[in-house]
């Protein structure tokens, strides 16, 4: 695939919705080790709202991504949801009026979204958050597997302590454990690409 259209966005979203539902309990359990154990359930409720909005997406990638941001903003105020909201809104602004984007440009849009998410959250790279998973993709050479990159980053950060978000409350306990947000990001990318991580 050399370009990405709204039709591809539909397909990716359907895959992410299905994968989120498959992984609800896994994400809840991971989150319960460091937080309140509702990450999977939160994302399933977000996925349900997005599923209901799929038909309303227009043939404009920018407008569609901003619409997805609004849908998330209507249902959840969790930190993970808020980050998604910021990233989608930022990417939507960059892609305003475009019906397709090249896969190479996708990476640039990804970087723009990551920059916006870092600025809005106040988190830093290295804090062991989903943003580190996103950064591994932003820094990777073109056409490598995004699933493999995020999976490798999860393993890289496993021995480190969380320094941002609610998991920082359990910073010592987070050592040796996977960051729930990073794993959720991995599951979403698995859903979007159809590839499964070797883990």
């Amino acid at each position: 695939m050399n370009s990405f259209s709204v039709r591809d966005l539909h397909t990716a979203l359907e895959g992410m919705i299905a994968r989120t539902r498959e992984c609800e309990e896994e994400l809840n359990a991971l989150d319960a080790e460091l937080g309140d154990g509702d990450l999977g359930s939160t994302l399933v409720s977000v996925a349900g709202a997005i599923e209901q909005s799929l038909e309303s997406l227009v043939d404009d990638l920018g407008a569609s991504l901003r619409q997805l941001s609004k849908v998330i903003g209507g249902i959840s105020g969790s930190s993970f949801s808020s980050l998604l909201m910021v990233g989608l809104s930022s990417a939507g602004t960059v892609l305003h009026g475009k019906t397709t984007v090249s896969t190479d440009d996708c990476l640039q849009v990804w970087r723009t979204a990551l920059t916006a998410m870092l600025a809005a959250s106040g988190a830093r790279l290295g804090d062991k958050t989903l943003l580190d998973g996103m950064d591994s993709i932003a820094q990777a050479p073109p056409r490598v597997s995004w699933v493999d990159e995020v999976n490798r980053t999860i393993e890289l950060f496993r021995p480190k302590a969380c320094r941002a978000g609610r998991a920082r409350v359990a910073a010592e306990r987070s050592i040796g454990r996977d960051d729930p947000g990073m794993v959720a990001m991995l599951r979403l990318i698995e859903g979007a690409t159809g590839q499964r991580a070797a883990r």
Partner: protein
Amino acid sequence: MKKLINTPARYVDEALAGMLAAHRETFAAQGRSGRLIVRARSKSPGRVGLVTGGGFGHLPLFAGYVGEGLLDACAVGDVFAGPSRDSVSEALEAADRGAGVLVIIGNYGGDRMVFTMAAEEWRAAGHAVEIVIGNDDIASAPEPERASRRGVAGLIFAFKVAGAAAEVGWSLERCRAVAARMVERTRTIGVALSPCILPARGKPTFEIAGESIEMGMGIHGEKGVWHGPLKPADALVDEMLERLTAELPIEAGSRVAVLCNSLGATPIEELYILYRRIAEVLDQRGVTIVRPMVGHYVTSMEMAGASISLAPLDQELEPLLIAPTPSPFWKST
């Protein structure tokens, strides 16, 4: 888990429903989710509206400080998770009385993102809105990194001065400035003895082993500055005051606001033991306490422990802080 609840899923909504039923003269619920808490009687048109919001589980913060002389609207989220952007947008609309809206929130990543996005949309639609972010928790980052500190109990001082100012017709810019100055002058530190339990999880998200305590722990259990054996109350107060006053221009003759706050389970008796020492130390320094506040103001469900907030006042801040309000939760002794 031993909690007086029906089901974890209804924890927030049933607690809010009870608060509204008990204080019909103060609060009303609005919004698509029913989690937008507004005043029972709206403020007069032409006044600045005040909005806050955040995760649930800290009552009376945040929703309890809606009321005459305080806030106009509060967007309530889930337990320890902030409100949705739509809920915040509804709060901005509900609070707007034609003179702009001031948002005062604590410094938490999710809340900051959601409120900022909603405020930007509100501004783009032609409305005036400003945001002030509370960051009074001195244990959450060193002083040079004040901007990254969390907002905790001292946030309510900013609610009060801005609320009193808005009530008598100050402009949005003056309300913003006075709230920001109150935040600038407010410092808080807490000490936790035991954790709280999130209803959906059923067990503590962190542990404080045996007889130990955590100095500087945040209201969600964020790590503090030290973890060690319990000490006598006076020794704890001395350390907390030492840390607070190291950052504040408090000297003989100063007039200060003091909040001695229970984190939830700590009873009023122990708070008075703490306050006794606070008053003693400040009196020895020649400092006057203006309207001491001792009680449950910003909590973390059943977490045991207390926080102390200090804020040196001036001729502008003091009258606003002590201006009367019929709020059931703003009590000064």
